[in-house]
């Protein structure tokens, strides 16, 4: 053995093969062959519950008079009729309108 060499090339190669083999086994063990169908069932159950809640528990606080829009900046008229920024990032009924 030369100075400074702890493991031979053969030993390192052997260790790499063993680690690769066990890694492959671990990865294959983690796979879930049922995952797709179980996901579909969970999705269906979640949809069912959401729909039932929509009908029975009153999903909305009130029936909106107009669709809501998300405005970046909202402007309002001031006392002298000038236009000034009223609020930022506020959800308002579409009827009110927003500058951007």
């Amino acid at each position: 053995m030369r100075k400074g060499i702890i493991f031979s090339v053969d030993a390192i190669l052997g260790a790499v093969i063993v680690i690769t083999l066990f890694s492959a086994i671990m990865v294959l063990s983690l796979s879930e062959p049922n995952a797709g169908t179980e996901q579909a069932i969970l999705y269906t159950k979640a949809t069912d519950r959401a729909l039932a809640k929509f009908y029975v528990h009153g999903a909305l606080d009130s029936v909106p008079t107009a669709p809501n829009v998300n405005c970046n900046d909202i402007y309002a008229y001031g006392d002298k009729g000038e236009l000034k920024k009223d609020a930022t990032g506020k959800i308002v009924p579409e009827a009110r309108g927003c500058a951007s």
Partner: protein
Amino acid sequence: METKKFSRGQIFSLDFIIAMAIVALAIGLLLSFYQTTAAQEKEARVQNELNVIALNASNQLLEKNRCSPAGGFAGQGYKLFGCLDGSKFSSFSTSAGLSKGSLMIPEGFNCYITDMEAFGNIQILSNICPSDTPAGVTDVASVERNFVGHAGDVTKYDYERCVAGLYPLDCAGAFGQKTINVKVWKA
């Protein structure tokens, strides 16, 4: 004097024997893993098939008897998903041509459907799904579906006031919450 490399009577070196033992162990491990994986995949395939059939049957049951919007409400593009019309279900469950095929359950599979909440876990559609899972059957798929029930077409008045929480008395009066359970297994 020349040094002897091997002892007398020794055929294999100790290194070779240890290497062979490790190889045998590794092959055994791989075969064991292969067998386990193959069995798991086979079981998963069977369970997946049953799950899909049960889910599809429950979808068919709910969609074929879905509530319809009443009168002018029907022409406004509303589709009442998740609502089962009790009147339609009565006609469906007693119709002459009703079979397991009506719920897209293939031949060779058995089913058992119960209404879990409305009347306290009673069997429904016993004409096509007559008996519960026999003892000894281990691969069974069971899908539980929640929905609301309504007798007859739904008026826009009921629909809007109910979803807005404004129904005069109790929304459950117009839309009762129900649960069915569909079990499927291979005959």
